């Protein structure tokens, strides 16, 4: 699979290295944003605790912006 964003820019030779978790587009290394999301365990009637490891999530730039409200 090629990178969707690169392909739209007319560059058809960049391989996708990831698939956006949300929209499913393939993205190359330059267009992939990795976010490490906190994982919580527990909740009523136990205090929730943050697990030591975070969960990786791959996003395209647009979904990343929407997911983090542009942050």
């Amino acid at each position, binding site marked *: 699979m090629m990178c969707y964003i690169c392909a739209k820019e007319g560059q058809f030779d960049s391989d996708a290295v990831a698939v956006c978790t949300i929209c499913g587009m393939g993205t190359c290394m330059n267009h992939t944003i990795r976010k490490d999301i906190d994982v919580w365990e*527990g909740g*009523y*009637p*136990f*205090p929730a*605790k*943050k697990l030591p490891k975070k969960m990786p999530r791959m996003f395209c730039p647009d979904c990343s912006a929407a997911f983090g409200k542009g942050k």
Partner: protein
Amino acid sequence: MASLSTRCIAEGVGTLLLVYFGAGAAAVTLMLAAGSNPATPFNIGIGQLGGLGDWFAIGMVFAITIAAVIYSLGRVSGAHLNPAVTIALAVTKRFPANETVGYVIAQCIGAACGSLLFALTVGMNAVTVGGLGATAPFPGIGYGQAILAEAIATFVLMLVIMGVAVDKRAPPGFAGLIIGLTVGGMITATGNITGASLNTARTFGPYLIDSVLGGPNLWIYFPIYIIGPIVGAVLAALFYDRIAAE
């Protein structure tokens, strides 16, 4: 996870709200009925205005407050709001034994603060007429009967907590609503028997502040609200573990 002190503050604030609104609703009902002639000797004022509807109203205040606190503070401290619940979770090794004392003390302090705050906002009639919503066995209800009633009602509460919250197979999201409504239902049913505490801290708060501010002295009944709820909750947790294991 939040530190033990942070979690104790959450337990304290949650129990404060439970007592302020729940026990407060019972005190207000007594104040509303003050001066009227009770229809029967079984009636001390609550029930004078709307029969079991009075208890339903009080139960719904508890139900809504408990649901609100569980949804808002449940992930911080677990929102037990009740020594019987904390002890039952500790006995079945779900909650660390060394944190249990801290939780119970926090719940009792929170409950006392709730009663004090209620007295401050409503005035001395809340203490002398309303008794700050303190629980006591009703006319004709014996000590042992009261313990039994508290134990049965708290058994149901803890059984529901086990089934809708502790059990990992429970559907997510319903715990606060169902547990609140369960307490509301138990209060409607057993209110006119024991005052329907189901919770040692909920009784301790009004008792302590009544003593400080010159309200009724009901300490002789306190063991009912220690033994009944704790025995009922522990039995429910053990029972659930026994029947739901397979």
